[in-house]
């Protein structure tokens, strides 16, 4: 009896105090997901944040639990694609990219052609899809730019595509046009690099 009480006290103390905003049933379910994630070495902060987002937005417990479970599964898939050395921000961005429609192979390819951190490249991929760019075109564009573009270049590329879409350009065409125009800046006009959104040929880092 005393041992059980001590165990309960220990568990409560080990819980993140931020989770007290959840009702007891939801909290215990979320804690179970967090424990499972910790057991396999996944970062848990984004899972906690998703639960808190649900609580603040007044979502039902069932919805919150479903969201954190799905996120934990997706974080595992992201780590499977990026490898165990991927940092938490990279995994969180990779989840967004996977949910946007990028395949695990695209993520693995990106890891091979770009020096970490991959957070911005993965985010730009997800944000392009959110803007209406087809997932395969967004992935091809990011893969083409990834070897040499700086994070700021990728952000500027995304903004340029979004501007073109807002002005009425078809998302896929806007991506191709901006990619070919931006390639001159990123790769250098005389580099001879091929940067085609439909046929990316990532180059190894010098």
């Amino acid at each position: 009896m005393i041992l059980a009480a001590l165990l309960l006290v220990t568990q409560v103390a080990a819980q993140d105090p931020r989770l007290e905003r959840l009702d007891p049933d939801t909290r215990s379910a979320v804690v179970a997901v967090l424990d499972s994630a910790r057991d396999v070495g996944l970062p848990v902060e984004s899972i906690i944040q998703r639960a808190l987002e649900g609580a603040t937005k007044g979502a039902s417990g069932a919805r919150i639990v479903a969201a954190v479970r799905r996120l934990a599964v997706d974080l595992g898939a992201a780590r499977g694609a990026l490898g165990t050395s991927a940092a938490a921000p990279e995994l969180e961005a990779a989840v967004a990219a996977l949910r946007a429609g990028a395949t695990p192979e695209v993520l693995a390819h990106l890891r091979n052609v770009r020096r970490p951190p991959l957070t911005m490249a993965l985010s730009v991929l997800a944000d392009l899809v959110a803007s209406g760019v087809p997932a395969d075109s967004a992935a091809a564009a990011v893969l083409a730019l990834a070897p040499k573009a700086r994070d700021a270049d990728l952000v500027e590329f995304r903004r340029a595509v979004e501007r073109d879409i807002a002005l009425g350009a078809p998302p896929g065409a806007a991506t191709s046009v901006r990619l070919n125009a931006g390639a001159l800046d990123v790769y250098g006009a005389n580099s001879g690099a091929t940067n085609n959104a439909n046929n990316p040929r990532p180059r190894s880092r010098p």
Partner: protein
Amino acid sequence: MFEQDDETVERVIQHLRRPMVMDPGLDARVMREIARVPSPKRRARLLLPLLAVAAVLATVLIVARPWSWNRASKTDVLQFVLVAPQAASVTLVGDFNDWDPVRSPMQTAHGVWATVVRLAPGRYRYAFLVNGVEWRADPSAPAAKDDEFGTPSSVVTVGGRGS
């Protein structure tokens, strides 16, 4: 008037033609003073350690770039803005403040609400809470497409390099 001038000039000439008696110790004193002045080689020897220290300092400054240490500490300061002239209150809520509606209240100037947040590299979901009840996405940021709670959210990404 001219004759008087000639006499004066003649007296000056006579005075200048007198032999001048030099101080016999002058040469020795001059040579002693010259010896005290460091030679160019000696000056270079004195400067070498100073130049070496300057070179080391310059190398440290170029390699370590202490002026960018703040950026290297991996946080960016971001300003969030929402135009909401009719709103009585707007707060910024997101992954960076535990979705706590009281932690990042926004200040208004003529209906333009703004606040500043310092963020480490990462991808963050956030939204604006208007008048404590209405959730709004940031119209100037990418939308969070995977919204599972039925209200709009936006995303902001802070990069780790070259951003």
